[in-house]
């Protein structure tokens, strides 16, 4: 009887604050290990870091079957990834998620963009104009995050995840 009353008392007072502390500590650990954005995950790191997920970018480089090095845009106007997929990869750049992006790019139709050596990855359905298909040998996916220093007043990007290579 006493034990049950103590347990209820404990639950009423410490269950939710305990959960909050556990999730916040998990978020801090994930931010330091897998590159989780400080703004997400329940660690109360928003308004402490310039590393917002929407400022991050997914950098995709590929080697074509004829040995050319190209860049693949999966962000701006590409339809390959849904908004939710893009947000998830940028916020939590886990290796399995990056690998899955690489696999998708490897088999996706690519259309040339208005920038040299940059292609847009599309879904099969949305690849409207049938240009010459681009055969890819390898795809490397990496998430980059912004950095800023007040004294330098410069912003620049650096990798926040490891570069994951996917081969045909």
């Amino acid at each position, binding site marked *: 009887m006493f034990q049950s009353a103590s347990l209820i008392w404990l639950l009423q*007072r410490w269950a939710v604050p305990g959960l909050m502390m556990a*999730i916040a500590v998990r978020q801090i650990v994930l931010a330091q290990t897998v590159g989780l954005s400080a703004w997400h995950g329940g660690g*109360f790191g928003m308004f402490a*870091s310039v590393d917002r997920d929407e400022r991050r970018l997914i950098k995709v480089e590929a080697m074509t079957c004829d040995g050319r090095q190209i860049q693949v845009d999966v962000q701006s106007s590409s339809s390959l990834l849904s908004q939710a997929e893009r947000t998830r990869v940028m916020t939590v750049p886990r290796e399995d998620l990056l690998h899955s992006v690489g696999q998708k790019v490897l088999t996706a139709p690519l259309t040339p963009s208005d920038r040299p050596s940059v292609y847009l990855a599309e879904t099969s359905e949305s690849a409207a104009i049938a240009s010459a298909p681009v055969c890819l040998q390898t795809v490397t996916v990496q998430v980059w995050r912004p950095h800023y220093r*007040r004294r330098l007043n*410069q912003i620049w*990007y650096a990798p926040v995840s490891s570069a994951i290579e996917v081969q045909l």
Partner: protein
Amino acid sequence: MIRALGSRWLQAVAHWLNQPRHLLILWLTAVLVTLQGLDELYLDQLPEKLLAALMLSVPQMLTSPIAWCGLAGLMVGSDIFFWWRLVNHEYLITYWVLVCAIAAFNQFSLKILAWNARLLIGLCFLFATVWKFIGGEYLDGSFLQLTFLADPRLAMGATWLGGIAETALQDNYSRLLEMQTTAALGPTPLNSSPLLSAMSVVLSYWTILIEGITAIAFLSPWPSGLFRHRDVCLLLFVITTYSVIPVFSFAAILLLMGLAQCPTRETFKSALYLNLFVLMPLWLPLPQAVFYLLRQLT
């Protein structure tokens, strides 16, 4: 006319505060769950919003433990599935609904609500302060300076505090967008000013100070003077922060939990929390509105 309106408003606030406090808290919580994030609604959040709206319209449901457990279950389920998408105040609102669900089995005891509200506020400020130390971008003013220069929501601060022209800010936004779209990742300078640079450092230390003090005030009964004046810290933080950075839901959950932990005998503070919560659509966007109006006029 204005005096009569003010008098009727005060009567309404007094009426709300005179009803059982737990009912007021539950009602405001259901309002918050229904309205928060409506501007960017995800389908998975629809069931919890519908249930909260139903609890507001059926009085028996507002005090039903089953309804609160259902609401907590829906919110926890959605949060587990989409944890990477949520921002901090969404976690905080879910924690608070969990507290309401737990308290429901003890006749919504004010002691349980107040205890948890105090701890949740304190922990929120504690972790916010910890992040400002471990993030490595806050103590030298870097975070705030970039936020002023690159976040349109802080254009008011950049212009009024830092003297940055609107065209210079627009140029910064374009440069950042270009970096992201062209993947030009090398160092890029932004338009700034020495005044904004200095203000960023001052405001960084002010924020750390007020957040750190608020964390101590809510988590520790010592020093007793600080503990007694914890509401002043929280109210000062809410008013000074969210009038510059209008984040409705975060301000709302802090004010709601502030009211929940405020002793009922403290009528002035309770009324202040309630007024700020209910009048948020007026006072929170006011400075920004004045800023944009003045900008249009000039």
